Every structure is written in structure tokens, then in C-alpha cells.
């Protein structure tokens, strides 16, 4: 069973929700979890919830990096921060992957400091799953979008590498033979979107390893035309937050409608099962977190406001990624590219 290091002090509700999530994972799975953080704080939460001690160990450290802190400064000054210690555990071979809901910048920097980037990869990318329309029975209701925040602007080579990394991840995790790759752009034509996107389009179209389906426009992101969507971090982050925001507004609007009129309330009750399914589909906690791809080791970055369920699922995703050896798949794909 893989061993997963979890940054217990990172996140809006740390260590409470992080420890609770890990406790759930310890009871439900055989995954070995190493909680990294203040031992006394972790233990005080652990004793209040059902857990399996056989699957949990604690790596004590004194510092933690807050969500609002400047990542560069914090990484430089807090040598014993939980995210840094967690990353070190992975590089020392005492854990196979890292999970953190902490400061994203600090996460990326800590991993850059400790992990080696796969040979040939120029920049790492955060890949996130999002719900999409299912075209046929058995189709995965989730698609992958990368990058969603590790970068701001990218060059064509980097976007092609993102496509290769997303392709490898979808092949291993979603078990797709030939994932359909789309490039997020403002039009279908290959020349749209400026020089970088046009060049990326040309290279992806000529790439023998990839099943490139062309440009994807914003209105088709959720229709399921592509299994992996490639974009710059700035755009990807905005798309992801937009999807989450729309889902939240939808949920709020329906509950408000139910409050106003009895007839609407009855209607919503009749639609209850369908609405629950939609809510489940758009519930980020089900997907755990987003892998940061491009390192030789796996790291799963969770939402800062992750609850216990999200952390539990992130631990499971990390273990699955380790078992399926995603970094090796990416490395092999990059070797093919060179």
C-alpha cells in the first residue's frame, strides 16, 4: 500500500478538517498516511473522531505557512514548515506522494525545491477535474483541465507538454485508451487566439501520440467534446472558478425559489433526486484535489476550503496515482516527444 504524506497544517480549516479526512481514509482504506504538522494539535483532533491508528503516523514539525502569506518569503524563512517537511518525506522515500490544501504558491515552491522535474518538462501544471455532459452511457462524467494555476502565461512548447501530461494522467487514472485532447481558445479555427495558441494548435495537430480534436470554445468546455483541455494557468483558473461559481449560484437560486412559493417547493421536491445528482456532480469534494503534474513525485493540491470528505478523496486519488505510476507514464511520453 502506498504511503501518503498529508500537510496537516495547510488549508482554511486546518488541522481540523485535514485530520478528520485522513481519519476517514484510515478507516476506509489500507493507505498509510503520514500527517505532517504540530503533533499535539493533530492528536487532539484525532482522538475525537473514529480512526485506525495502524494506518496513521505523525511527523511533527513546528511551522506552518498561512494561506495569506507570501509563498517565497515563507518558504525561505520557515524551514520547518509542514509543506516543506512533507515534501522532504517524499524525496527521502518515507512517503510516495504528498497531499496539501495549503497555500498554492507555497505548495508549488516547496515541491520545486524538493522534487525533481521530469526530464524534458519545462514547467509543471495543476490539473483539475470538472463535471461535463455525458455523451454516451459509461462515459466518464469528469474531464481534465490543465493548467489551472501553476503558471500564468505559457509558450507553445509548454502547452504541448501540458497536453502530453494530461494525456498520460487520463490514460492512467480515467483508463481512457486515447483521451481526446482539446485546446481552449476563442474560436474553432486553428489560426485563432494569437501566435502562441496558433503554434500550439499546429504542433498538437501534427503530434502522433495525441488524439487532438482541435480548439474548444468556452461554451463547449462542459459539453464533453474533449477529455483533456489544455490552457494557460490564468485562463484555466478562471474557467474552473466560473464553473464552481455557476454551480453555487444554481444551488442558491433553487433553494431561494423553494422558499418563495409552495408550488415551486413541491416542484423542487419532485425534482429532488435529479437535483441531488447535479449537486453531487458539481461537488468538488468528490474529486479530492488537483494533481500538480510534471514532477517525478505525485502531489495532490486540494482546495483551501476543503472539508474532510475532500481530503479523504484526495488521499485516495494520490494513492491511485502512485499505484498507477503516473509520473513514469508522463516521463515516457516526454521521451517520445524528444
Amino acid at each position: 500500500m502506498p504511503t501518503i504524506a498529508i500537510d496537516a497544517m495547510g488549508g482554511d480549516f486546518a488541522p481540523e478538517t485535514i485530520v478528520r479526512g485522513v481519519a476517514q481514509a484510515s478507516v476506509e482504506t489500507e493507505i498509510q498516511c503520514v500527517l505532517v504538522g504540530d503533533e499535539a494539535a493533530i492528536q487532539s483532533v484525532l482522538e475525537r473522531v473514529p480512526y485506525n491508528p495502524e494506518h496513521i503516523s505523525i511527523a511533527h514539525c513546528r511551522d506552518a505557512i498561512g494561506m495569506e502569506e507570501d509563498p517565497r518569503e515563507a518558504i525561505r524563512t520557515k524551514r520547518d514548515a509542514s509543506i516543506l517537511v512533507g515534501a522532504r518525506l517524499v524525496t527521502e522515500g518515507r512517503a510516495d506522494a504528498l497531499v496539501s490544501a495549503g497555500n498554492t504558491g507555497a505548495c508549488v515552491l516547496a515541491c520545486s525545491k524538493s522534487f525533481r522535474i521530469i526530464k524534458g518538462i519545462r514547467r509543471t501544471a495543476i490539473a483539475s477535474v470538472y463535471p461535463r455532459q455525458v455523451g454516451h452511457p459509461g462515459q466518464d462524467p469528469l474531464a481534465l483541465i490543465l493548467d489551472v494555476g501553476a503558471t500564468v502565461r505559457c509558450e507553445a512548447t509548454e502547452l504541448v507538454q501540458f497536453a502530453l501530461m494530461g494525456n498520460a494522467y487520463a490514460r492512467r487514472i480515467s483508463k481512457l485508451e486515447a483521451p481526446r485532447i482539446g485546446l481552449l481558445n476563442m474560436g474553432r479555427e486553428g489560426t485563432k487566439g494569437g501566435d502562441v495558441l496558433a503554434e500550439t494548435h499546429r504542433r498538437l495537430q501534427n503530434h502522433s501520440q495525441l488524439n487532438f480534436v482541435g480548439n474548444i470554445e468556452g461554451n463547449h468546455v462542459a459539453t464533453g467534446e474533449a477529455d483533456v483541455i489544455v490552457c494557460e494557468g490564468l485562463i484555466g483558473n478562471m474557467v474552473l472558478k466560473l464553473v464552481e461559481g455557476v454551480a453555487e449560484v444554481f444551488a442558491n437560486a433553487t433553494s431561494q425559489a423553494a422558499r418563495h412559493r409552495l408550488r415551486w417547493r413541491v416542484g423542487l421536491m419532485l425534482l429532488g433526486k435529479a437535483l441531488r445528482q447535479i449537486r453531487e456532480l458539481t461537488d468538488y469534494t468528490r474529486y479530492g484535489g488537483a494533481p500538480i503534474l510534471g514532477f517525478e513525485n505525485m502531489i495532490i493540491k486540494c482546495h483551501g476550503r476543503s472539508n474532510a470528505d475532500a481530503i479523504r478523496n484526495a488521499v485516495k486519488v494520490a494513492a491511485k496515482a502512485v499505484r498507477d505510476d503516473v509520473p513514469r507514464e508522463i516521463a515516457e511520453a516526454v521521451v517520445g516527444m524528444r
Partner: protein
Amino acid sequence: MSFRFRGRPSGAGRTQQGRLVVYCWDLDKTYLRTEFDTVGQLLRVPFQRPEDKVEVPGVVELIRALKPCAQRTGRTARIFFLSASPPQIGRAIRAKLALDEVPYDGIVFKNQLKYLVRGKFHNLREQVGFKLGELLRNRHAQPADAEEVLFGDDWESDAVTYSMYADTLARRIDLAALRRLLDRARVDPKVAEEVLTLAATVEPADGVRRIFVNLERRTPPLSFRRLGPRVVPTFNYFQTAAMLHADGYIDRAAVVRVARSLVERAGYTADHLVNSLADLCRRGHLARADEIVIRHRLVRDGLLRAVPKGGTVQRLRTRVKVGLRVLGWRWRRRGVLDASSIGAPVDYDAVLAELDGARRVRGAK
């Protein structure tokens, strides 16, 4: 951190020699992995053959070690089983114990049929009165200076019943308070009168040393804190064995035997063992020095992969600690709970009210 010389080998130095130790075990969910979560499983229990009954991993090796270890330190151990199951399944249980080659001195069942015939259905599920009565009855048959170590689980009310018994015996609960508590626990008046009579006539003694609770349902350990440091919730029998070793009831070889049985028959790994020990330390039950000694022995016996990592200074420090510990030195660290120092009195009214609430929630589910 301070330490003091005890002058006796580790594991044998903490209990007084020459006394009788009484080990009292609950059966279902403590010794046996009895499944009665559903009505179907409950109905199947009486028809199970001895070889179909499954014991909790490590329990057999642990019980087998109790008598020989006591003998080696010049003491006598008596082992009793206390079960809320009806005597009708006694034959299968006795056969199972014989099959496991577990030595024991007595076994008590609850006469459920008696209550069924009288229509006292509440008594079928009520365990506080039954167990308290039987523990007191058993105490009457033992010498006044006998030590007791009790084993239960987190399914019913073992921890609170055993604690009430310990405090009744030590006269920390007087008869009037006991009457009130039995009433609160909705113990049948006839059973309650019997318990009170036994409590009034038992020789006072602070005899209960430890109460182990097998966390079969993974109840959060914090729930047991209010019962004091005497109660040790454990997640597996390796943890229980480690605590019994630290208390001086079994030797290191017995702890290794329990660990080995878990590894060989229950799929435990080195990580599981190390994590289990560390968990006991973090909860304040096991001293770090005891953890180091046990880990060292497990490494020596090939159950752990490697010696603890660290630099030369750390390795040297560990070796010195292990050496001194084996010679009988004890580290007293702040944060380790001492079972002999019972702090604030237990608020049994609150504990029983909580237990009742939890039972109602389970019933509603």
C-alpha cells in the same frame, strides 16, 4: 524528564510480587469476533460450531501468555470469562476455548432464557447490572489483595461497568450512590438489590489495576477519557500487550508473540505495529522509553524492518535508553498517564446519561 531506579528488569518491575492477578475477559467482540449487527447474524450465533467462531487477532497468544508470565515473577494468574450470551451456547464456547488452547479458571453466561420466560425483555439487553453483579460475585471468591485487570469492548457499556465496579470495590462509590446509578442505568430492581448486597459485603480494596477496551467499533478514544487513566482503549491486541508489558504483567517475548501472530495471521505490517505503539504514546498511555524497548525487541526478532533512523548521537542515545530501561530505569515523562493516580472522581451520572443517549441514537438508526 526525570528517572528513577527500580532495580528490577523491565516489564516485571511495576506490580508487586506474590499476589494473585485476576484477568476477567468479556467474550463477544473482545475475545470472539461475534457478528450480531443484523438480526440474521444474531440468529446464526447459537448454531455456530466452535470451529466457525473467529477470535479477535492476537487475543489467543495474549491470554496464553498471562499465566506463564505471572508464574515467572512468582505470582498466580486466574483467568475468567464473562459473557452476556446465554448458557445454551456455552458448549460451543468452551469447545472453542479448548480448540484455541486457552487456559481459564471460570466462565459465566447470562441466563437470558430466565428473563425471556418472565417477560423481562429489557433485562435481555441490560448489561450493567449483570456484569457488575458477576464481577462482585467473583471478587467474593478471590483473596482480598488480588489485583484485577479487566477486558471489554466498546459495543455496550463495558468501560463504564468495569469502572463502576473498580470504584465500588475501592469504596469511591458508596452504596447510596451505587443505588442511584443502578437506577439511572435502568437495572432491574431485583438485580440491583443483588448487586447492592454483594457490594455491601465485599472486602474494600483498590484492586482494579487496568481496564482495557477493545475499540471494535472504533469509538473515538476521547470518549473514555472521563473514566480516568485506568481505562485504556486499544485498537488491537498488540497495543494491549504493550500496555500489559509496561505494567509488568507480561514479558517482552509475549509481546513479540502477539505481534508475530498479527503479522502472520492478520496481515499486519511493520508500519502497523510501529504506528500502533506510537498511537499509545501520543495518547499518553505508554511511555516513550517502553515504546523504544518494545521496538528494539521487535527489530531484534525480525518483525520490524530497521532500527530507528537518525544520526550517530541519536542512535547512541537510543542504545543508552534501551540499555538503562532493560536494567530497570524508568523515565517519568510529563504527559504519560499513571493508572495508579486516579485523579478527579468520575461523574457516572453524566457518563450513564451519555451512554443512554448514544444507545437511543443507535436504536433510532
